Each structure stands twice: as structure tokens, then as C-alpha cells.
């Protein structure tokens, strides 16, 4: 049944309840922690550690070096990376009144780190970095979403084009396999595709933002209605309405019609060929409507799925302009995995065996 594993029972809670039932103490108080955060007890911690050590082993073996960045950064510095990513977090002041923010992802801090610490590095040599750390995002109360989460991921700097992306996707698939997953897949799209098509099809510029907003909110019914309102040619209309529904094997690249689509899809074609050469194309779902919420992606974007979890386990993409915003332009792509969600998928996988 689809519900299996989607619910996230608070592991350990059952045992504690039983025990506290026996020794109920009237003076015992429950001191709360903020919604969306959690305490992790030894049994679960051991399992989380087992997962992260396997993910880390794969990254290390592939020549990636671990980095650590501060959880707190200057808000104005994070904001250079991405308005929304920096603005979403929690803020405080230091003793001089400067605004500090809790990072909401690891990619922006690493872009800052690369631009400032590796500014002298030869542009020709790719830089391979991985990390394990916590990040924080604002979530609505009682939605079951995590406000504090543990991420493990990697960034490949200075490896442009499909080869770089293929390396990252291959490593993510391998790392999750080592962590005990078997049914995980990667959804792959092009974050700039829809925008490119709007321009190529000469859709009036003042409607672009509205259409992209509907696409990123995944409101396909609303998107179709707005495309209809534009009175485009039947071919253009069909392409813009059908595109977000095109997902599957390489055949979807041919199902997007017209010369505009042909050109815009060239990047995905080349990447798919690179994935085929690595023998992992069958683990990848091409998804022409995929967009990631963060604004710094410039090309390929991907998400990681497992049938046991209703949310993406992680994702990433190519962000060729982000490091340049910190003053040292370098191409880059990466992927991040949510360790607690990987854990849910891994326990579900164990139960199947």
C-alpha cells in the first residue's frame, strides 16, 4: 500500500512511553523543543551514523574532500547567493549589531568558501568537496515538516557540462545504493528550459513571471488556463501545456515538438547520452517540467525519489553563476541528500527483504 513508510512514526517514542507509564512521576515535566526539531536517541543515532558513514565513504572514495562551514553566517553574505534562500532562515544579531542568519542550505556557504578560500586554485583543476551538516528552514507549524535537518551532499566545481552532472548523479545513485536503498531514482530536468522556450516562442515578456510562478507552484491546471489566454499558435500552446507532463525515458525528448524545443532540449540529450555511457540512464526519469525552488540553478536540475517516501530525498543541479556572485566565477554542480528521509527509505527497504 502506498501509505507504507510515508508516515513518520517517532521512533523510540513508543518505548519511552511504555517506560514512563510504569514510573509515572508527578514531578516529571515535559520541556518542549520547537516544532520541526527533534531529539535523537542512541538507537536511531547509530542508524543515522551508519547511513552517513556509507554516504561519506562513497564521496571520499571518489576523491571528494570534506569541508565544514559555520552554521551562522552574515545574512548580507548569504543574500549575495540567493535572495530567497537567505531570507527564509532564522536571524539573530551579534554583539556589534550585525545580522546573522542560520544557513538554509549548504550550497551557498560552499560557493562563498570556494570563491574566498580557493580563489587562487587553477581554474583547470576540478575541485571536489563534500559535507555533512545541519541546515534550517522555516516551516508552518503542525505540517510534519522538518525545521532543522541533516544534509549530506557534494559539490563538483570546475567540471562544466554534462560530464560534471553525470558524475554527480552517478555518485548520488551509488551512495544511496551503499546506504541500503534499492528502488531510488533520479528525476532530471533543465531549470532554464521553460524560460528558454517562452523566449523562443515569442511569448509576451510581461507574462513570463506569471507562467513560471504557476509552473514552480506545480499548478498545471492554472498554467494551462493562462497559456490558453495568450492566444498562441496551436503548436506553441501545445508545447507549453504538455511540457510539464512529459516525464519518463528518453522518448520524452522526442515528444516535445517543434524546433524551439529541439534546441532547448539539446543539453538534456547530451546529458542523457553521458548517463547512458555510465550505464545509469535507466535509473533516471527525464522530467521536462522539473524546476527547483532555489533561484541559483542555471541548467540541469535533479531530484532524488524513493517509493517509500512521499517527499524528494534530496536534489541539486548546475549553478554556474553562483560562485561568480562571490567574485570568482567557476562552473559548478552538486547534490544534497536529506539524511533523515534516506533513513526512512532505508528502513522501508529493510522491511521488504
Amino acid at each position, binding site marked *: 500500500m*502506498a*501509505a507504507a513508510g*510515508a508516515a513518520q512514526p517517532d521512533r523510540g517514542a513508543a518505548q519511552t512511553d511504555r517506560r514512563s507509564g510504569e514510573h509515572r512521576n508527578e514531578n516529571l515535566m515535559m520541556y518542549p523543543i520547537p516544532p520541526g526539531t527533534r531529539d535523537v536517541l542512541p538507537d536511531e543515532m547509530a542508524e543515522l551514523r551508519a547511513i552517513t558513514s556509507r554516504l561519506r565513504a562513497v564521496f571520499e572514495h571518489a576523491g571528494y574532500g570534506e569541508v565544514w562551514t559555520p552554521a551562522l553566517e552574515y545574512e548580507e553574505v548569504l543574500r549575495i547567493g540567493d535572495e530567497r534562500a537567505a531570507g527564509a532562515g532564522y536571524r539573530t544579531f551579534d554583539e556589534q549589531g550585525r545580522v546573522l542568519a542560520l544557513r538554509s542550505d549548504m550550497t551557498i556557504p560552499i560557493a562563498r568558501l570556494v570563491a574566498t578560500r580557493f580563489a587562487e586554485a587553477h581554474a583547470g583543476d576540478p575541485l571536489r568537496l563534500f559535507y555533512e551538516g545541519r541546515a534550517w528552514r522555516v516551516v508552518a507549524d503542525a*505540517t510534519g515538516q522538518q525545521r532543522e535537518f541533516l544534509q549530506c551532499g557534494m559539490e563538483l566545481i570546475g567540471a562544466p557540462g554534462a560530464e560534471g552532472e553525470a558524475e554527480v548523479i552517478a555518485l548520488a545513485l551509488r551512495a544511496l545504493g551503499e546506504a541500503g536503498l534499492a528502488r531510488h531514482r533520479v528525476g532530471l530536468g533543465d531549470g532554464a528550459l521553460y524560460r528558454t522556450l517562452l523566449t523562443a516562442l515569442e511569448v509576451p515578456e510581461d507574462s513570463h513571471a506569471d507562467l513560471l510562478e504557476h509552473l514552480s*507552484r*506545480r499548478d*498545471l491546471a492554472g498554467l494551462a488556463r493562462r497559456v490558453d489566454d495568450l492566444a498562441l499558435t496551436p503548436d506553441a500552446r501545445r508545447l507549453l501545456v504538455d511540457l510539464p507532463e512529459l*516525464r519518463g525515458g528518453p522518448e520524452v525528448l522526442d515528444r516535445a515538438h517543434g524546433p524551439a524545443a529541439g534546441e532547448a532540449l539539446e543539453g538534456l540529450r547530451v546529458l542523457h547520452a553521458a548517463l547512458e555511457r555510465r550505464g545509469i540512464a535507466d535509473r533516471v526519469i527525464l522530467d521536462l517540467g522539473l524546476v527547483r525552488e532555489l533561484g541559483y540553478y542555471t541548467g540541469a536540475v535533479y531530484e532524488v525519489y524513493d517509493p517509500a517516501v512521499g*517527499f524528494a530525498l534530496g536534489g541539486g543541479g548546475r549553478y554556474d553563476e553562483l560562485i561568480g556572485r562571490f567574485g570568482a566565477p567557476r562552473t559548478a554542480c552538486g547534490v544534497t541528500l536529506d539524511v533523515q528521509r534516506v533513513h526512512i527509505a532505508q528502513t522501508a527497504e529493510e522491511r521488504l527483504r
Partner: protein
Amino acid sequence: MSAPLTLAVPRGALLQGSLDLLDRLGIDTSEVRCNDRKLLFEDAGIVTMRPSDVPTYVEHGAADLGITGKDVLLEAPERDVYELLDLGFGRCAMVVAARSGDDAMGESLRRLGRVRIATKYPAIASAHFAATGRQAEIVVVKGSVELAPLTGLVDGIVDLTATGRTLVENGLEVVEEIVDCTARLIANPVAHKLKAEAIDAVVQRIRSRA
């Protein structure tokens, strides 16, 4: 290998329309129709719930697809689900209504610089008054919203109305229409990729019958 889909079906005003649609898709809904206490129908792949819970189950992947009103989706914009189709049935209007005959809202705005609004839809109501440049104090109520302006609790209400009859019977009238709401087909983002074929088959069948 494609697993069967689990579908979240709303109880209440959208139930009939949803079941009729599923019948036309060839899904056996007879058990759901004759049993209004049971919630989980595993053979048909159907779970039934309040319309406002449908996005929650679908977002978490406890159901792959769901049917709910546009009003519910507008009220919970943080829910990460695909909105695949406008199903067309269950048409209602989200409106601002106030007591007939006097201009309580206008009076309140002129004298006090704000209106007091009772609603079950605080997100939609706040967004509407913000977008129209008026300050509003939103009072959330759970039961019959129509009571609130009659007792002087508020100047007006934001609520969903199909025929407007309940409003009229309580001496209220529609003063502004905010948005039309119909039933929508929504999907879990992961299922949308991993069960693409099964979901597309449902979407195609609904489209071809529209």
C-alpha cells in the same frame, strides 16, 4: 511494476461528483456509496476524508492522487502537490458577504480604518483584503460563519457559497466575489514521477471524457 494508485476522495459536498467521476473511469465505487462510516477502501484504492485533509495526505504520499476544492488549495498554499486538472464540478464562489441593507464594512473602513471579517479561510481572506489595499482584522471561526455579522462580532464574512441561499436566509448579501472554486485533481510530487504512467492514464481518461 507500476503499483496501483491510492486516491484521496473528499467527503461532503464534493463526494457525489467525485464518485460519479470515478465510476466513469471504471473504478468500482459501490462500496463507498453504501458505507458512510468506513474510511479506507483498499480494494478500490480509495481513502475518504474531509476535503481540507486531502492535500495533507497527498503531500505526504499517503495518497498518490486526490480530489479537493480549489478553495482548500488556496487556503494551504504551502502544501507541495501537483494541481493536475480542473475537474469542473462542485463550482462555488469565494465571496465577501455582509448584512443586507446597511454598509457595515464601508462604515467601519471610513470610521475605524479597518474591517473585521469572520471566516474559515484566513489565508484567502487576508490575501484578498491586502491585495485590495484595505486593512482587515481576520477572526477565525469554525462553525456557521453567517452568525458572526448578525451578532455584531464582525462587519462581514469571507465564505464559500454555491447558491447563495444560506446567505440570503440569514439576511446577508454578496458584496464582492473573490474567486470561483471548482474541484481539482492533485498529485503527490514523487508519485507524479515514479507512477507517471498510471497517473497519466487517469488524467487522459478524465480529459477525453470532459
